Structure formats: C-alpha cells, structure tokens
C-alpha cells in the first residue's frame, strides 16, 4: 500500500491515517474507518469527537484532501450508543483490530456483514467544521503520541540537510523513540517503494528499469521492546514498512548490522544517552568490541549527527569521534522561534472590537476627544465625580463608551474601516520559547583510501601530463569527453 505521507493521491481512503485539522496547533491524527473497531457503539460507525463537533468517518472518507468537512449531529450520550458487543472482551489496539477485521473480511464476508451493521447516515450539525489533511512528517511530529522526548522540525530539518540525506540514501537511526525523526528521515531518503515480488507479474517485472536503482531506506534501532512495537505498528499503519526497518536492539553492545550484513549506511543519526558507546561499531574497519563488518557504505563519505542535551555528552562524543578518525567535527545549537502575528488595534474607533484597546491612536484623536468631553464635562461631573483624568481610559471601557456617545467623529470612522483593517500588524516571539533542545554534533568519515587505490588512480591520471599551468583553456564538455576517451583507448592498447 502506498503511504499517504509520500503519495497521498487525491482523496482520503479507508484504513489510512489522516489528520483532522481543527485550528492551528490542534490537529488530530486518526485512521479513517467506516466501522467502529473500538466498538464504542455510535450509530454512525466510527466517530471522532472534537471541541468543534463530532465527525463520523463516513463523512471523511473518499473526500478530496484539504476539504472542509461539516460536523454532524451525533448523539454522544449513552442513548445514541449501542451496548458494546459481547464477543469483544478486551479492548485491543486499533491496529490489531484492523488486521483482524481485514483477515475476517477476506475469509468470510458474511460474518463481517453480521458483525458490522451498516452505519447510520450522518446528519449535518448546525455548526462546526474541520479540514481533512493528508499526513506529513511535520504534522505527525506535532500530533504523535509521545513515548519519549522527540526531535522536532527545527532540529530535524537542519540535521537531515546537514546529513546530506537524499533520495536513495540509507540512514541508520538509534533510538527510534517515538518515531518523530524516523518519519522525516524516511521522507528524505524515499525514492520509491520496494516492489513485493508476489504482487508483480512477469510483464511488470520486465517493465522495471534494468539499471537497478538504489531505494532509500531508514534502519531504525531501539532497545525498548514496547517502543519498537509501537513504532512498527505505526509504520505499517502509515504504509512505511517498506522504507523503514525497525530493529529491537541495544546498539551499544550489538551495533548496526542486519542479519550480520552491512546496511551500507550513508548517514547516521544518534539520539541516545551515550552516543560515544555506539561509535565503535561505526567504523570503516572493525575495531575491538565493534561490529565484525562495517555497517557503512564503503563507496561514499558517511555523515553523522549526534543529538545530546548536555555539553558533557557532546564533549565525550567529540573526543571519541576524533579517536576514530572522523573529520570536520562541528557542534551547533539550533535556536528557533515561532512568531505570533496579529493586529494591535488602538483607537477610539475600535470600540466594540474584541481585543482592541479603546485609546486615542494619535494626538489628534486625543485632542478631538478632549474637546468633545469638555463640552459634556459639566454634566458628567455632576453625575459622577470619580470619572476624571486619573482613570486610565484603556481599562475603564465603560467610561469611554459613555463618552463617545456624544462624539460623532469616531462613529464615522468605525463604519469606514473594516475590523480586519483596524490597527497595525505586529509580530512578537510566541509565548512558549524553546531556548535549548540539544547540542548537535556533526562529523564526516571519508572513504578509505589505500595505497593500492592511490597507485591505481595515479596510473589512470598521471601527474606528468600537465599541458598547461595556466587556467585551463575553454573546452567544451564534449571535447573533453572525447579526449578522455581517446586517452583511455590508448591506455588499453598499451596494456594489451
């Protein structure tokens, strides 16, 4: 099954994860299903209840991505619910039930029909809506169920860029934790789903390009049994099982080989308490206590990033990286801010606008108001002595409302300026600021280069044939290629 993360198609489909976007920072991930596998007993089948209304999945399925969906009238009280079916004794997780039901559906459709009555048609509610979105690593990271600390978009976007994680790469990751980084890494390396042999008939196989393209993959390791299970379940649910391999493993002791073979990694991300303990496995040649075969791709440079909240951890990592021959070692912190952008609405014309401060927005306006209040001054002073200049008008809104009934000028402006244009657009850093996530240590391990390699290279590109010590002449690429070929041919002739 293709993943809705990478190839979402045009419409939502059953048994796929979708995001229900309520408002900024309020997005609920859910697996779309007509029938309610948790058996909560809604007449409408599976229903997601939100602050903005109830949404039977029958209204979310088969819709174009991005659609605005109206809430439905769902009786969320006990009356609208059927009593849970007796056969279901435990409350299994969504995935388990899903696979069970699928199997059932294949085996004997009649049983399923009995077990699952057609859900009642949904009836639109008077108000409330959401937007139906396909999942992305960003929205998943923001809404995933946390089991551990996770790496967020500001860090992983930078890390993956620096790791040169590109389509077709293999990335090693430890530990998988809650799978946040895993999803982003999978998108970075994705360049196709592996074809499952069974599903391909002869014809299709022949159509496959003869040149075998290397498919990107993420090899994720985690030593916490439950977390691996959770991540594996999610990967299947998200259609990513062909791109990510999750392994239950203590990488300090056992390293990164898969069935004893090298995964040929091009990039590594370590989000572990003691990354330096895993580094002995990540060498070009086996070292004491490390993996007997190098898990690295021998034909490319390998990029690494370790992610540690404490400086001491980073220092230990760096010291070990140096001892193991890594170069271009660098450490950075990512400092990221989200901005809050809004209109600050000041002015006497902002009366009645929610969130606005009714206060003169200019000296002119203040003077105008002073003139006006002066006129009515005597009358007011009789009424209430406490109303005078000492009361800050911004706080005492009622006073101003009373005053402005006499000022005609401000009423006119209110009518002319639409609410959305009142005041001025300002920005500030959002209230919750992350000031430290972790120290990011980067390094590169170049390819191995033996004397034999060098000798071969020297034979092919002898130093003696420098034609020109000045900047090279302007030759076309074609010309250069031709020359190269001629040289190669000559060499071959010589060797024969």
């Amino acid at each position, binding site marked *: 099954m293709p993943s809705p993360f990478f*190839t979402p198609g*045009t419409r939502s489909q059953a048994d796929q994860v979708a995001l229900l976007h309520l408002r900024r920072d309020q997005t609920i991930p859910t697996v779309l299903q007509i029938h309610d596998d948790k058996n909560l007993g809604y007449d409408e089948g599976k229903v997601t209840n939100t602050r903005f209304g109830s949404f039977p999945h029958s209204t979310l399925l088969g819709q174009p991505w991005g659609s605005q969906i109206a809430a439905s009238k769902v009786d969320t009280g006990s009356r609208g619910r059927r009593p849970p079916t007796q056969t279901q004794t435990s409350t299994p997780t969504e995935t388990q039930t899903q696979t069970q039901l699928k199997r059932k559906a294949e085996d004997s459709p009649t049983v399923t029909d009995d077990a699952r009555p057609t859900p009642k048609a949904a009836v639109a509610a008077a108000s409330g809506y959401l937007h139906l979105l396909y999942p992305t690593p960003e929205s998943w990271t923001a809404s995933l169920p946390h089991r551990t600390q996770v790496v967020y978009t500001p860090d992983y976007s930078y890390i993956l860029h620096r790791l040169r994680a590109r389509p077709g790469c293999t990335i090693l990751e430890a530990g998988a934790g809650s799978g946040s980084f895993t999803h982003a890494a999978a998108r970075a390396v994705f360049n196709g789903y592996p074809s499952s042999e069974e599903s391909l008939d002869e014809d299709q196989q022949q159509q496959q390009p003869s040149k075998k393209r290397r498919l990107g993959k993420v090899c994720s390791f985690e030593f916490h049994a439950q977390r691996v299970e959770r991540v594996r379940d999610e990967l299947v649910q998200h259609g990513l099982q062909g791109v990510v391999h999750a392994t239950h493993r203590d990488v300090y002791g056992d390293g990164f080989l898969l069935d004893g073979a090298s995964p040929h990694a091009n990039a590594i991300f370590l989000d572990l308490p003691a990354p330096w303990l895993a580094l002995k496995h990540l060498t070009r040649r086996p070292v004491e206590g490390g993996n007997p075969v190098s898990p690295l791709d021998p034909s490319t440079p390998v990029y690494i990033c370790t992610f540690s909240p404490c400086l001491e951890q980073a220092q230990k990592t760096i010291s070990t990286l140096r*001892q193991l021959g890594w170069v271009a070692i660098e450490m950075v912190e990512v400092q990221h801010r989200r901005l809050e952008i809004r209109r600050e609405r000041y002015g006497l014309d902002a009366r009645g606008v929610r969130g606005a401060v009714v206060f003169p927005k200019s000296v002119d306006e203040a003077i105008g108001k002073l003139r006006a209040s002066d006129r009515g001054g005597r009358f007011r002073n009789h009424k209430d002595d406490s109303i005078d200049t000492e009361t800050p008008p911004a706080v005492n809104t009622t006073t101003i409302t009373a005053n402005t009934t006499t000022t005609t000028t401000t009423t006119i402006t209110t009518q002319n300026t639409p609410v959305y244009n009142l005041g001025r657009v300002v920005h500030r850093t959002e209230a919750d600021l992350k000031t430290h996530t972790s120290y990011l240590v980067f390094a590169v391990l170049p390819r191995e280069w033996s004397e034999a390699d060098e000798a071969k290279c020297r034979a092919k590109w002898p130093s003696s044939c420098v034609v020109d010590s000045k900047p090279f002449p302007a030759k076309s690429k074609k010309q250069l290629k031709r020359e190269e070929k001629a040289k190669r041919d000559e060499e071959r002739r010589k060797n024969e």
Partner: protein
Amino acid sequence: MHSYIRPNDYVGVRLPSEGTRIIRPVPNTTVSLGKYGSFPANQIIGRPYHLTFEITETPDEDGNILRVVSAAELHAESLISDGSGEADGEGEELEMYGDGDAPMRTNREIVDDSSTQKMTLEEIEALKKEAGGAGREIIAKLLESHTALDQKTAFSLAKYTLRKRKKYMRRFTPIPLDVGFLTNYMLGEKDAAKIMELRDEAIGLIGCWGNVHHGGNTPIEDAMGSRPNSRYFVVDETGGLIVAAMAERMGILFSEDGDDEATSTVPEPSQHPANEDGQTEADQTEPGAEDSVPSRSPHQQPMSASGNTITLLHAHTRPNLSLLKYFGFDYDNPDESHPLFKHLKTVSWLQLVDPSTDPIYSNEPEEPSQETLSTMKASKRNAFYRKRNRWARTRNVVDEARAGGFDGLIVASLMEPATIMKYAVPLLTGSASVVAFSPTVEPLSELVDLYSTHRKTAFITQKRQIREQDEEDQVQGLAELEAEFIVDPSLLVAASVQTSRVRSWQVLPGRTHPLMSSRGGPEGYIFHAIRVLPAQDHIQAAGNQSRKRRKVSQKETTAPATTATDSGDANTDIQMRL
C-alpha cells in the same frame, strides 16, 4: 553519491582559514588556490572527497606533490591534550585574550582527568611517523613540551604558536559541491544578497515545511487517485539556489541522479509538416533548442516529465538559474542526460496569468504543406521544427501549469508575496503546503494578516451576500470583493511565520564555548500555510466554548489584540456580531 572526484565536475574546497573556494579539476591542467599554492588536477581526480591534502615542496617519484593528511594528524593537538590537565580548562585565556602576547599563566593545580582516554606512547610514536611535512614538525614540538609534564605552560605556549601557524599551512580539503556547500560559499565568499542571505537552517525548514520530496516509483495508473506525485511550483530569485535545494531533495539535482521513471508522452510536434517561415529568431538560447532534432523520441523532450517536477514561475522573459551550472546544468544549453532536463519546467508569469498575450504561446508556427516542406533547405527545415517544438513545449508546460493540481508552492522572491499567492495558491491541490521565504519579517507578517480570521469571516460573509444577489449585481459584487481582498483568505489555513538560527560552538579539550562572533544580517523568515478547499455552503464555526471564552475575556483586559485562528470559537464571536 559523491563517491569520488570526477573530472570536469565543480568541486568545493575548504582551506585552513575556514574559507572556501570552488575549483574545477580539468584533466591535465593545474589548479590554483592562490596563496595556498597550486597542484595538478590529476592528483585529486578519482580521489575521495573530504580527505585533506597538503601541498608539499618536493614531488615524490611519481611527480606527486600532494600528501594526504591523516585524521589523526589533523586532530593531533586535541588527541594529545585530551586526558591531560589541558582538558580542565587551561590555556583558554590564550585563545581569548592572548592574541599576540605570551601566556601569563601558571598551572599550579593540574588534575589529570583519567576518564578521557589518553594516547598511548605507541600511538603517539605512530602518529609521529605517519605525519609528514609541516605536520611532523608540529607534532614533534607538541610532544617535546608535552612529555615534560611539569612544564604545562611551555606546552601551552608551543600549542599557541602552532595554532597560529596552522592557519597558513598549504592544505586544502575537497568537499562535494552540493547545496549545503554552495550556500555557505555564496554567504561567505560571494554576494550574500544574491541568494537572499539564505542559510542552511532556512533551506532545511523550507524543504520540510514545503513537504518537498521524491515522488516515488509508483506507476501513475497504480497511484491512489491516479495522479502524478511531487509536482511543485517554485518562485526563485536566488539565482537557482532554491530550485537546486528542492531538486536535491527530489533526487533530480546531480547528473548521477538520472533515473528512469515514467514520463508523459508529449505530442510529437515534429510529425506536423513545416512551413516556410523566413524568420531567423535567435532561439539558440532556448533550452534544448541546439540539440533538438526533429525525430527526437518523447522521453528526450525537455520538460517532459509528468511527476517529480519543479515548475518555475519567473518574472523576466528568461529565468535566472545561473547557480545550476555548478551542478552540471546550463539552462541555455542543457545536457539531455541531466535529470533537470526533463524535470525542470519554466513558465513566465505572463504565460501563467494571460497566455493568449504571450508571443511564444499564442503564435503557433503555421504548418506548411508537405511539398513546401520537402523543398526546404535542411537548415531551414530544422529551424522550423525547432520553432514548432518550442511552441508545442511551451503550450504543454503552460497548459499543464494552468490546470493546477500542484503539491506545493515554494517562494523566495522580493515580489509582493500576496500577488504570488493570488495566482499560485488556487492552482494547488488541497492539503498542499505553501512556503515563502523572506530575509525580513515585514512582507510575511503582512501576508499572515491577509489570512487572518477577521478577514476570512468578512470575506465569506460578503461572498455569501453577493451570491444571494441577482446575476448582474453578482458580477460587480465579485469584482469589488476581489479588489478589496487581493487574496481569497479562505484558501489557506494555519498561516504562521518562524525563524531559525544556529549557534556554532568551538569544542576543543578544555576550550569549549560558543563562537565569539558570526555572521549578522537579515534573520530570514519562513511563512507556512496549508491549502484547503472551503466548502461551498457556509459552515458556521463552533466549539465547546464555555471554558475557553472565560479565558479569552480574561485575556482581553491584559492583551490588547486577538490572535489569528482558523476555526472554532474566535470565529463564532465575530460571526454572531456580523
């Protein structure tokens, strides 16, 4: 993936000063690095990236003057200091204050930290043997002072002088020329304004929030909902850096990336008979024009890919993509084997918005009769086919762009963002991401404001009122609505702006601290929002608001403004008032 240095490719170089250069090792020529010396290109061709070379004075028996500096030698100073008292924070003052002055410090309380690993005597000896040239000298000096353990100060002094010398060593490190390298090269060595002062952190964020990725290998007919994947709209005024960054993420930037996924069948314009058209237009500058032969097979057609594509919207007649040359792609004379040849499409704003007035799009080269064609001179016939091909290609690419269905919009432009959104956002599929980069915050905060809740509400209400009018009034009403609302605010949700900056640290034994200075300049801001499909019938916002409203009214007295929201209770209040 950058396994070795290929002849004639552009190659990045890092120098001991931390400066960078771009070189091009053409076989049998000399590469010059200015004051760092020069060397024959043949001595780095075929070698791996990330090795550090030292240019030596005397060639070896093969005439080779480059010596590979081992990692151990590069780290010699740190490796030796690690685990000595050095790691406890001594000697730092030299670096921080002592520039030029001799160290003034004594180290009375030396505590050996046995937790970190010391180099063994054998290791040090091995390192000494392995090192050559300037490296050997450094290590010898270091060890001389280091073995005299009670003379820590002398050691510090030796290190200090050597550290200063290192900056002038004739060493260099070839680095793959990728987007990351090019970005830093442009920032550090070139005109940073040319790339809108984009930094790595912004490029990472743009790519992720834009959800830019490879479209996969699913044959179109198998794909869900049958449509090509990963089609992105890009507006790029950074000379092609944004295009390159997106192409890198999509696996279509490097010549080695060339892969064979499905391409749509472009109508064969060459099958049409040609006509006599004496015009000799200078269309050699047109992509692919030079090598275009009439009988080209469909998959060699430029801009012919159906999925995993970038459609660049450009403001001038010709887009500026000069930086792509570093990746082996010359827009004016593209290499057919480069993946961008098929996957990068270009459409001018005029072609997108009003194609009928575009000279290329609207002027179909007239078809001459078969006889005229056969009597034409070969060169003339080819010229005709070229024109015809160009016209057909333009039509395909423009029609396809105007049909929409794009999976994302990435903008790095100095143009008014709202004007870009106005035309490009409606052409995105639902759920697609919109990302806009700006060096400064103002254009983006204004853009967010154009999608504020107040605007959305007002727009939706006014539109509904217009729809209730009779037809004539509707036309005028909609025109007025468009004049008032430059963009349809109901097409995007979750509009937000963010910024990011990395802080670099020096991490050396006993001398760990953030760098004392770094590049200033514009912060660089990123706008993100999601395209949605508003329902045709008006849906009232709702929410279980009782608790929230209390909170809001409480807030009102302290905070003088509302925050833009997309749905829910903030809307309700306003809707009730209207």
